[in-house]
């Protein structure tokens, strides 16, 4: 296995997997606690429209997707915050429209030679040095913003109304969170693809949620699950010769099942002595 790391493509894949795991583990923490998972689906699917615009205009597709997804995320936020539409309705309209735009633009282009399958389902082994720089830049911006605004974002996730009443700039914070989410989604497209990116955002944090009693441990577990699953998935996919993105998601699902079982076992262990104690007291 060590000799595999001698290959440049494998080194780049590993670095990309760790960076994306870190990003999605951190952002997923807020996605699960603030219940934004449907927004994650909307943003990831709308990224296809951005990729198509990038292809047509001759711009780096992931860069175009980053800009386009951020705009879509802001529009979803604006429509739902202004009370014009329910959030899920806004997401439903925007993500299908953006996806349709992507398909229409790609079909109009007579000369496209883009690996669409790679964007839809990920191709971590094809990560280039340029992709790594883009990923590193996105990771620095997103992790920096989340780190500096962590206490405000946690308050926002727990109790938005009181956060607003306390004078926190709730709407700008929400848009910062949406922007970070859009950037993380775009970063993860190379690894697991548009269709499966939601798994990296939701499953690691959901696994952490099953086991953690405090937010710090949930955050650590979320990041650890995301990073570990990308590394395991990468090597398993290589040895079994199956798609890396799908393998990473399957590893994530497996880790989630383990976390679910451990969480249930722990809660049962905590509750049982209390029940026994209550019964003992009830006996005269």
């Amino acid at each position, binding site marked *: 296995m060590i000799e595999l790391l001698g290959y440049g493509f494998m080194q780049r894949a590993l670095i990309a997997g760790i960076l994306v795991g870190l990003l999605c583990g951190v952002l997923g923490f807020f996605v699960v*606690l603030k219940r934004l998972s449907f927004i994650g689906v909307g943003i990831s699917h709308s990224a296809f429209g951005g990729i198509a615009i990038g292809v047509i205009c001759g711009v780096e597709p992931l860069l175009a997707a980053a800009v386009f997804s951020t705009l879509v995320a802001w529009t979803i936020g604006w429509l739902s915050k202004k009370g014009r539409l329910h959030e899920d309705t806004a997401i439903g309209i925007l993500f299908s429209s953006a996806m349709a735009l992507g398909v229409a633009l790609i079909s109009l282009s007579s000369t496209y030679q883009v690996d669409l399958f790679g964007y839809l389902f990920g191709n971590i082994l094809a990560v280039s040095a340029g992709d790594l720089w883009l990923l590193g830049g996105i990771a620095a911006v997103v992790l920096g913003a989340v780190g*500096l605004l962590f*206490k405000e974002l*946690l*308050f926002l996730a727990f109790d938005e109304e009181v956060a607003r*009443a306390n*004078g926190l700039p709730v709407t700008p914070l929400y848009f910062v969170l949406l922007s970070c989410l859009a950037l993380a989604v775009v970063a993860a497209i190379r690894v697991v693809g548009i269709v499966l990116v939601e798994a990296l955002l939701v499953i690691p944090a959901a696994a952490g949620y099953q086991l953690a009693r*405090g*937010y710090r441990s949930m955050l650590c577990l979320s990041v650890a699950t995301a990073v570990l699953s990308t590394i395991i998935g990468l090597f398993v996919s290589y040895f079994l010769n199956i798609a890396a993105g799908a393998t990473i998601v399957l590893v994530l699902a497996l880790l989630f099942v383990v976390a679910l079982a451990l969480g249930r076992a722990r809660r049962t262990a905590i509750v049982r002595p209390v029940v026994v104690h209550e019964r003992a007291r009830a006996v005269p």
Partner: protein
Amino acid sequence: MNSAAPIVEARGLAVDIDAHPVLWDINFSIAPGTFLGIIGPNGAGKTTLLRVLLGLIAPSRGTVSVLGRSPSQLGRGAHQIGYVPQRLDFDPRFPVSVQDVVMMGRACCLGLFRFPQRDDWRKVQDSIRQVGLAGYESRRIGDLSGGEQQRVFLARALCSQTRLLLLDEATTGLDLPAQHELYALLQRLRREMDLTVIAVSHDLLELGAHADELICINGTTHIHGNPRTVLDSHQLREAYRCEFDFLSDEARESAAQRP
């Protein structure tokens, strides 16, 4: 009545939501240190009034002044207003401890991009102790009883140099002893911290027994005065559009015993 400048004042306040009048011609002022109870039937606009005082809703007409300024211009001064909402429908498994929740109340004092320092943690500990939850710091919020959770939210509202405390039906869903404990705690904190308290509640008797003044609204101000006057008034019955047999002599006595 205190002769100091009012800490909260509304003059000709009106709020329209989607062109529908929710509040109109609301007039009242309260002196620092007062405990004001806001009562009124369902849909009377009590929570809307509280949200105007918090700066969450802008008045359509009239003026409101809180701590000498318009609520929308309080900015970071908003931390001097503590807010305890209706019992939260929050996820009981949200992974935060009591001290994490109370620390959220320091967020506005700290400002953006700043991390809590030792002094902030000390203030959090003080607030937790003030509401009688010392020893609960590391307990998860969802593991506490309803009454204990409300005390945590009270501690969060108090840990930022709070001068004005607003409570929106904070006793809803609590059993009678827990309600009584919460009001007794409010009275003690009010004395110790020199707080002004504005509480919205449907419990006329309990609120009447603890507040210095009651204001009854149903869209507009029906009556504002001491609890005995308000509870005995025909304006209260007009606002609720019913008679109150439950306002017994005992309840009136309790209200009358207030200084």
